């Protein structure tokens, strides 16, 4: 299958390892990955902060860039949710944008949805010999309804020990511009999330959104907790032969 990758601006700029992992994983599973170069950002930051018109313009760019794709894979649940849940609110009723969004949105998937629902795989042949806990990020949990997909994928990874995260469904406190507009509350929420993560005794906390991981990982790192955060894609891309980052072990995202 020919898969269009929407990398997202955050992954593109700060977490390219996640993008490389998605490419390696999908190619390993026998699919062709294309990267439409006109892509930039889904507009989530503008939309959630109240800047509707810029968000609308970015939605138009997204639709124009991806409208021919059979499937668009997004390694970020909140960006996938932006397209599927919020784009329909951006165009007026009966507008060109609304029609195009209605046509495209059902083919936009978070990585875990694409693997489990479209490709029908849960065992992707990964090997990751670490103790891991999973944080279900809010937009993946509540807007996309990812449910047990990430857990099914993680349980099929050889060598991986999956442990439950206490208070897992509670927001980590990132919330986009909330993290700086309400830095104190955001930090208080992050501190609790970090404490729960450390309590698990896991070595790695993973999720499907690097923006949340940047917040949780930044907190864990500031506390010198000795725990790191990794995007789920990097775990799934990891094999016994290649490690987490291709031929050689490299530095991991967000830590």
């Amino acid at each position, binding site marked *: 299958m020919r898969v269009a990758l929407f*990398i997202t601006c955050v992954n593109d700029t700060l977490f*390219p390892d996640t993008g490389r992992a998605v490419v390696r994983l999908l190619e390993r599973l026998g699919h062709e990955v294309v990267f439409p170069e006109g892509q930039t950002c889904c507009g989530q930051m503008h939309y959630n902060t109240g800047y509707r018109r810029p968000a609308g313009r970015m939605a138009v*760019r997204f639709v124009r860039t991806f409208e021919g794709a059979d499937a668009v894979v997004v390694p970020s649940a909140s960006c996938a949710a932006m397209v599927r849940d919020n784009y329909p609110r951006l165009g007026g009723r009966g507008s060109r944008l609304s029609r195009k969004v209605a046509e495209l949105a059902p083919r936009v998937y978070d990585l875990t949805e694409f693997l489990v629902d479209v490709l029908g795989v849960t065992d992707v042949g990964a090997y990751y010999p670490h103790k891991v806990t999973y944080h279900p990020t809010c937009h993946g949990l509540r807007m996309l309804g990812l449910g047990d997909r990430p857990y099914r994928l993680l349980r099929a990874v050889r060598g991986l020990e999956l442990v439950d995260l206490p208070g897992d469904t509670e927001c980590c406190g990132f919330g986009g*511009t909330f993290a700086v507009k309400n*830095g104190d509350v955001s930090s208080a929420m992050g501190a609790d999330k970090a404490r729960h993560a450390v309590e698990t005794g896991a070595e790695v906390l993973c999720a499907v959104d690097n923006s949340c991981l940047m917040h949780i990982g930044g907190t864990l*790192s500031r506390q010198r907790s000795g725990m790191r955060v990794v995007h789920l894609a990097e775990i799934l891309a990891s094999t016994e032969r290649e490690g987490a980052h291709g031929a050689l072990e490299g530095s991991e995202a967000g830590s």
Partner: protein
Amino acid sequence: MSATFLGIPPFPEAAEKAVNDSRLRHNLRKATHTIRDKRASVVGELHDDWQRLRAEGAAVKEHTLRHLDRYLEQLEESVQRAGGQVHWAADAAEANEIVTRLVKATGETDVVKVKSMATQEIELNEALAEAGITAYETDLAELIVQLGDDLPSHILVPAIHLGRAQIREIFLEQMAEWGVPAPEGLTDDPRALAEAARVHLRERFLRTRTAISGANFAVADSGTLVVLESEGNGRMCLTLPQTLISVVGIEKIVPTWSDLEVFMQLLPRSSTGERMNPYTSTWTGVTPGDGPQEFHLVLLDNGRTDVLADTVGRQALRCIRCSACLNTCPVYERTGGHAYGSVYPGPIGAILTPQLRGMSSEVDEALPYASSLCGACYEVCPVAIDIPEVLVHLREEVAESPGHLGEKAMMAGAEAVLSSPRALDAVQRAAGLGRGAVPRHLPGTAGAWTDTRDVPDVPAESFRQWWDKRGRERG
């Protein structure tokens, strides 16, 4: 009672103080988690029925709001037919004026109150005090707040911010000034505290001849008002006095008596986490020889009609004041209610207050941002108010208003970069070159990030650079 929300700073500033208050954080953590878990358990036992009830509750409210003009007139007629009198109040001042006049006409200077958000919203107690009338709160938590000269911090449990040792101190220090004193040797055992309040209030119930209430529901076809409660104090106020005055927001209407079937299931489970609340009182006008012989209904607008005109924002008027959104909100759990600067705190307050009061003050325009948009509030709302949607909608209003120049410039700059793959690539390359020079603590707005969090390492090459290179290598 002189405490008001005036003078509370905008949310981020008030929240900074709250998150560092260890006693507050402890009290809130304990209380919100207890009630959150109870709710989850009694909602969970209904399985799929819950979503059907929730959809039905939302539909009844939506229908009523769309035809509010008709149902309001029907309610007026039903109440009058049953022997009650109906008054219309456009705003808080008018409502306070009406109630003050009605109380004065009874010749009483003391009134007992059933817990009511509408009367909190219009600051009725303060208005009555100016007219020389003392309003006595009889709900246990409202009593605690009143005795402590404090402010309510939660819709359902206004004293949620206090622990029992603090309540004991308030009772010992203040009860005597207001009536029957607290017993000597009062401990902080919940049973002992409740008993002290019971004795204190009992004397008040038997003596006071005028009561003021709100209502959870007003039934248009029968003219019946409904109050759900846990303690029975409301039942006392609604039955013993001679005169009853009920101040009710115009959005509290349900069309028919049988619509209550839906809300009697939704409200207790969402609110106290009970299958059914201990006391449900209903009254229809006056009944000769039984209960208050004079009944006044004051229908309050106070901004609600303006909210109704906003097609996105008006879903906030479906709210049945259950507090489930407060109890589940990770922000509320860490700040408590006072930081919201309004009698309506938490997620529902963050969308209701700015709509009722407008967003002309710094306090009100900060409220739509007091959320990480995690969506937990929407998930638990028994009438399916999409709170995140309304928050974003209100943020749009703020972003379109004058001021906020720094943020607007930042957003415009971000759009310029993010609207062009070439500009984005240029910024990424520059960041890659400067990656070693990122300091651990950043200045300005970014400092709010680096105060508590490290910044991620900037990679030497962006994904798109890598992809481009890979393409060229592969030819």
